[in-house]
């Protein structure tokens, strides 16, 4: 292959554009910073108070022990909590400043636009700088905007649902996000409406030590459906960057929500995301999660199955290369009868990388006739790498069927031998095997993402064998 010299220690999309920042507050976190964020945004009083309350929770709350183990060096006072690019939000692509446009060209956004994917909300730093809501979506009554806009234009919807699925007291990073959140996506789908195409947004961190705290809220009314796709990419920087997002999904009775993320942060980012969905009766929520980049990712998408016959799925792929730790997993809470869930996790570690699956299946009292199936497979590609599996199962009901299975292995020598005897090089053969290993997840992705993921895996596999 022509890419033989590629070294993935160097981040593929790791350029850095110089962008002027309109507002650059000091590092660190305190009441004044939170007040300033809120007043800059001209928020209603309830949101300001909510932020301040959350800051108190953040100060009070201890870190979960494994969080502290995973990132002993994180210093909350050495981070910017809010940055606003110099442009205001625009509807027209050409009106964006050239350097910002360049960034997005490299990310392929205009192409996505040309492909009629959906309204694009591209996030640079903490504000949505470019956003175009496709007219046909508006015609259906679908609201798709950044969270700040939603708070201005639809405060009643935001106020009703904001923080109801993930309250600030849930964990230290949820509290942090609620105190300093900025940007993120807002989607509202009215009853019975099926969004005909995946909605898409890109997120980027672009300032050294800039924390990015986007907040996403998706409300899907009865019998409606939506597929939201999010991809991430960030340039290489020498110091650590913190990304701590919160994603809340409310799936009303009979609704279907799919949330797809391909995450490819540069290898210095701490990525700590709280993602949770509430699935009411007969609703389905599917999280598809690909974690390739970052220094450390801790992300456990969860579904609270609150109504009878609700269904939840988490399908994930994690890849940890040199110096990376992917600590990802899933959580399914069965709180109603006849609910079901599926967790499928595929992880690959290479060159000293570490992958961790950490999951929970919980069956509450009264949740009879529950089914859950968990499957975790790990590939370890060399001697320096590591893989852990921590699957928790807490069962308070009798009439449940809970299954968990996991395997850990290396790339099979007989498989390699077979492919190489057919004329493939060792690297090609290994890439093919690894791509086959994650195939159950890639086949659920929109095609562009499946191709991108597959190509990223091929790049990562260079030099993996031997």
């Amino acid at each position: 292959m022509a890419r033989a010299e590629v070294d993935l220690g160097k981040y593929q999309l790791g350029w850095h554009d110089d962008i002027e920042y309109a507002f650059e507050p000091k590092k660190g976190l305190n009441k004044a910073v939170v007040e300033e964020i809120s007043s800059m945004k001209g928020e209603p009083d309830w949101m300001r108070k909510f932020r301040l309350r959350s800051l108190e929770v953040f100060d009070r709350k201890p870190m979960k022990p494994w969080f502290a183990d995973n990132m002993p060096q994180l210093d909350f006072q050495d981070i910017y909590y809010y940055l606003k690019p110099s442009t205001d939000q625009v509807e027209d692509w050409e009106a964006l400043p050239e350097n910002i446009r360049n960034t997005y060209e490299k990310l392929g956004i205009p192409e996505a636009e040309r492909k009629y994917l959906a309204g694009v909300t591209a996030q640079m730093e903490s504000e949505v700088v470019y956003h175009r809501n496709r007219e046909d979506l508006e015609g259906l009554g679908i609201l798709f905007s950044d969270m700040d806009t939603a708070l201005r234009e639809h405060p009643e919807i935001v106020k009703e649902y904001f923080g109801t699925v993930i309250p600030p007291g849930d964990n230290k990073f949820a509290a942090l996000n609620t105190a300093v959140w900025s940007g993120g996506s807002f989607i509202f789908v009215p009853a019975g409406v099926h969004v005909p195409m995946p909605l898409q947004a890109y997120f980027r961190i672009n300032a050294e030590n800039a924390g990015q705290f986007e907040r996403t809220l998706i409300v899907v009314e009865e019998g409606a459906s939506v597929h939201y796709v999010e991809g991430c990419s960030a340039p290489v920087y020498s110091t650590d960057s913190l990304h701590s997002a919160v994603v809340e999904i409310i799936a009303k009775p009979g609704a279907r929500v799919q949330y797809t993320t391909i995450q490819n942060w540069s290898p210095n980012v701490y990525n700590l995301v709280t993602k949770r969905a509430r699935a009411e009766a007969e609703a389905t929520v599917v999280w598809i999660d690909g974690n390739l980049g970052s220094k450390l990712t801790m992300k456990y998408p969860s579904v609270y199955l609150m109504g009878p016959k609700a269904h939840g799925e988490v399908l994930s792929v994690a890849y940890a290369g040199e110096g990376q730790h992917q600590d990802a997993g899933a959580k399914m809470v069965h709180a109603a009868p006849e609910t079901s869930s599926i967790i499928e996790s595929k992880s690959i570690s290479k060159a000293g990388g570490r992958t961790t699956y950490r999951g929970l299946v919980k069956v509450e009292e009264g949740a009879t006739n529950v089914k859950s199936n968990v499957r975790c497979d790990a590939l370890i590609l060399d001697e320096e790498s590591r893989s852990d599996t921590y699957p928790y199962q807490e069962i308070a009901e009798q009439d449940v069927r809970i299954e968990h299975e996991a395997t850990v292995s290396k790339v099979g020598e007989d498989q390699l031998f077979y492919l190489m005897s057919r004329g493939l090089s060792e690297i090609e053969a290994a890439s093919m095997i690894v791509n086959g290993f994650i195939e159950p997840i890639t086949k659920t992705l929109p095609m562009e993402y499946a191709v991108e993921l597959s190509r990223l895996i091929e790049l990562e596999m260079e030099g993996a064998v031997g």
Partner: protein
Amino acid sequence: MTHAFTPDAARALGGPEWLVERRLAAAARLDAAAPPTTDEEIWRYSRIDAFDPSRWSPLAAPGGAGEHEVPVAVRSVYEEMVERCGLIVTVNGRVVHRELDDSFAAKGVMLGDLAVSCADEARGLLGTVAAESPDWFTDLHDAFLPGGAFVFVPAGVVLDRPILVFHFADAPDGSAVFPHTLVVAEPESEATVLEHRSSGGGELLISGVSEVVVGDGAHVNFVAVQNHGSRAWEIALQRAHVGRDATLTSSSIALGGAYARLRSEAHAVGEGSSSNLLAVYFADGDQMLDFRTLQDHSAPRSHSDLLFKGAVEHRAHSVYSGLIRLREDAQKADAHQTNRTLKLSPESHAESVPNLEILANDVQCTHASAIGPVDDDQLYYLESRGVPPEVAERLVVFGFFEDVFERLPVGPIAEPLRQAVREKFERRGASS
């Protein structure tokens, strides 16, 4: 925190000098630490938050030396058991009776009390396996163990019948007792040891440690039966070191206790070693049975397999939390772990957490766990053949346990164990 487990109390136990010193060192560690809480991962789901050390006190050393009567409750059990080549009975941690087939005594096999008859031999061996105290309770045990069962099988000796170790506890409510078993199987030896732990009906704290050293090329079957009284609290550690090309089968049958916790660990320290960890457990009433297992591989080409199967009924609670750790040097190791729990009533609880930490790449590792009710299809099949529903359920439950019994390496031992599980199953409801 004030409690009766003070260095002075530990000193008062007496015995050989080395043991007193060892106790005092542990008592000092104990003094400096607080009992665990459920905040610690290894104690998550446990009942440790209900543990109040000030409610318990150690037994003082008995007045006169010498061996005591074997309690009838113990004798009646072992008299019905398989033929044996040796027997040790301890009461409240002290050996009260021992016997050993002459032919094996002549070959150098030793059975005795590690604080009395075998004190010289046990010195230097006690704690070799459980040296790194994993928690507060091992320190507690080390500070207060009065003695314990010592089983020594010299190199190359093959025991043709099992050795039985009976630990019985019977003391006033609020007493803490500390039974200990130390099995040393030297290279190329073969032994089967059956450890039976039971107690009277009192409210007792039983903090036991069982150590098994499996020398290079040795083969050990260690079978433990726990049948404590319904008010007893047991916190036990079972740990084995398995040497090069050695094999260990460590099995547990857990039935009794109000709260009974077992940490069962197999450390594959020798290349090519093989460990099998098996358990059958059945909890009813308000019981909680709590298992923490560790398959720790630090040697290449080592193998381990774990199968824990249990059932919970009424409001009973079971916890299984296991870890397979394959360290950097454990290349070409393979390790497997399976936990299955049957839930026989709606109020029963079960937790299952099979963990993996894999630091080597050329390995095979799997785990599986399942929690569910008795299979409807199986019940339906049996009932359609005219089997009454209660009988059908019993057959399915026994069948569920049977694949563990079938893996027990010594056939004759399996039968009394099957019987113990059946008896408990038949009288379930009595305690509900």
